[in-house]
């Protein structure tokens, strides 16, 4: 192979020295998140979304390995898993948590403003993303980050 040490690809590889976590943690978190969001959608209860927004905020700001769901994974689920799992960079799930936070805040704002449709649509999108992540290992950052960049700098 003629390996090209492209400066950009080098930056991608080494420069940022990203934190690596067990990839099953965020996936487990997505399962819980899906259940919480489905509950919010079924009950129309804004406080469920407020609670989930707090979880998203911790995941978005501190990192997905610090959420209550990650705590449950680390202490109750991981000790029972026999095999070592795949690892991943912390940034992709952190990006997904940030997007989740935006949807949760939109839903909460809609609900407090009396706009029930905004609540329903925002929670529905958040549920779709969380469920896709949980069931199909969907990578939100892979699919939307580049489209966002392209849309922003047109």
């Amino acid at each position, binding site marked *: 192979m003629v390996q090209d040490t492209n400066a950009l690809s080098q930056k*991608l590889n080494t420069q*940022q020295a990203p934190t690596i976590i067990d990839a099953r943690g965020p996936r487990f978190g997505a399962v819980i998140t899906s259940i919480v969001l489905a509950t919010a959608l079924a009950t129309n209860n804004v406080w469920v979304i407020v609670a989930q927004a707090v979880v998203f905020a911790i995941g978005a700001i501190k990192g997905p390995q610090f959420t209550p769901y990650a705590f449950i994974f680390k202490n109750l689920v991981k000790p029972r898993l026999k095999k070592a799992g795949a690892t991943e960079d912390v940034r992709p799930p*952190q*990006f997904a948590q940030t997007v989740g936070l935006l949807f949760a805040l939109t839903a909460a704002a809609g609900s407090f403003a009396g706009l029930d449709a905004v609540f*329903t649509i925002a929670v*529905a999108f958040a549920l779709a993303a969380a469920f896709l992540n949980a069931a199909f290992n969907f990578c939100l950052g892979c699919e939307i*980050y580049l489209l966002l960049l392209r849309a922003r700098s047109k």
Partner: protein
Amino acid sequence: MNSLLPIALVLIASTAYGIWYQRTRGRVVVKGGKKKAGLITAQMIGAELGPRVTVVQFSSAFCTPCRATRALISDVTAGMDDVKYVEIDAEEQLELVRTLDIRSTPTTLFVDRKGNEVGRAMGAPKRAQVLSAIDAIR
């Protein structure tokens, strides 16, 4: 029970999308007759083209399968003297991303020695898919 309708709709729609997503990610799509973007040049990708094949992978920071794809292609192309592997940070090359219409990461292009894009895979391809895409180029 009316309130369960939104959940049902979301789960049905996202399951349909999820099945499509899993089937299409990683599949190498061979480009048809139309060549919109034109030839890929050494200048565009910041590296000389390979003697037979150039594999160009677009990656981004918020992309878990990009790491696996990098490891796989590096491994597959190791020892192939006529194949060159180039990884590009899509975020830093938005102009090129637009020209080549890259929409998600990882997107891997299989380019022949003249610079024609012969195939592309969106999402992480499997070993056999990378091998056959490289083998198909003369």
